[in-house]
């Protein structure tokens, strides 16, 4: 078993959906989450607050700095994610397809390091 990160990118250009749409999305995602739990593949998942809430800490220099905003200048950012257990990439991709349909966005699949 390998753990895979299924991440859902967001974009600063995305329009804020209406409340109804958000409520429906929460419902379908929760249904999907329950399916992952029932299958015994669930590790952890969560949605993140908008990228405007990010703060970047850098302690690699002489003194640590704390900066308002994300590390990357990119328009795309991590909006939410699942960590799941899967036998192989095919299984992870299958969950990702269902997750993508549930949350209404593309899903990036990456294995955690260490379990080749």
């Amino acid at each position, binding site marked *: 078993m*390998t753990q895979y990160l299924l991440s859902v990118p967001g974009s600063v250009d995305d329009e804020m959906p209406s409340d109804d749409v958000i409520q429906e999305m929460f419902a379908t995602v929760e249904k999907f989450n329950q399916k992952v739990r029932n299958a015994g593949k669930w590790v952890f998942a969560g949605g993140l607050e908008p990228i405007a809430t990010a703060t970047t800490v850098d302690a690699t220099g002489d003194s640590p700095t704390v900066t308002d905003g994300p590390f990357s200048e990119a328009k795309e950012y991590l909006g939410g994610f699942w960590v799941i257990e899967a*036998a*192989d*990439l*095919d299984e992870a*991709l299958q969950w990702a397809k269902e997750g993508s349909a549930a949350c209404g966005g593309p899903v990036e*699949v990456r294995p955690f390091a260490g379990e*080749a």
Partner: protein
Amino acid sequence: MSAQRPAAALGADAVADVVRAEYGRVIAGLIRRYGDIGLAEDALGEAIVIALERWPQEGVPPNPAGWLTTTASRKALDHLRREKVRDEKYAEATMLTDDTPPEPTGPVTDDRLRLIFTCCHPALAEPARVALTLRLLGGLTVAEIASAFLIPETTMAQRITRAKAKIAKAGIPYRIPERADLAERLDGVLAVLYLVYNEGYLSSTADNADRQDLADEAIRLTRAVRLIADEIGSPPEVDGLLALMLLSQARRPARIAADGSLVTLDDQGRTNWDSHLIDEGHAIVRECLRRNAPGPYQLQAAIQAVHTDALDVSLTDWRQIVALYDQLMHVRPSPVVALNRAVALAELDGPQVALAIVDGLELTAYAPWHATRADLLRRLGRTNDARRAYAAAIATTENPAERAWLASRRKTLG
């Protein structure tokens, strides 16, 4: 040991030929057994070095694939024992003594077939899929693949290394996909098999006119894929690709002259064509026509069927060929298809009409484009332009048979 060849006849090249012919089969078995492409490649590499030392002296063993598998397995086990401390999971005793047959994977149990579905996984980019398939199943060297793709060897080496690392680290499984995934995987596999066949049909490397072993392997794998495809209702494109390969293959005995130059369709001795392959190919094409769901491979197979139907080039039904190319332009338009259509059109409407089309295509890096122009210009009596076009064609290809043929065509211009 009657299968042994006399040692004297066996130079390093001959050993390399034997090894290459068995490479795909052996590596696929090793990958199945050890689940690790890198380990399988290293072990087989060491076995090949030993073969190069021993076979010229002792003769080729009666079962070269079996010999390579056994020797490579021993080497792989040596590696695993050395790594035992570092990587406990490899130390499992069952692994070290595993001689159980592979577990069945559906209608076809074939290590090479599993390997091709691994190499053609949609999580890999298409150039990587083709490169990996040619490397692992075709046994081509990285240098040969790089030359086939006209890119630097270091770039190709990186591409293959990256693909292998992704298979290992992302957990791309080594198996034939389940029924639900098979349909979407099939297109990619067919595309790669066709490219492997083409590399076998007309090798892009300077040392060979064709790579019969690759062409045969592509056909063998396509037949195996066809058996699996039965499970999901036999998509007709699988049949189309097989028929296309068989009908191209049927002409092989007449395609290359004794001096190594290519013989074009017009000049091929048609009695030398393989009638069994033609019969089989025609039967499949008829079946495709009956199902009436034409796709690009079926249409190309149908074009080959019309060509191979004519006992003499003058009896070729060019009108039907142009009609099939029109359909092909509709379902999968490309400059190469347009070029081939123009060649057929020249037979119906004359070289002037064809040349106007050919000149409008952006294919200057493609030897057949120059060769087609040269031929049309020759037929229009524009000898100097034709000569220049032949020179451009020769400069654009590495294939020795193609070069020899082009040079002889240029010579006929005087």
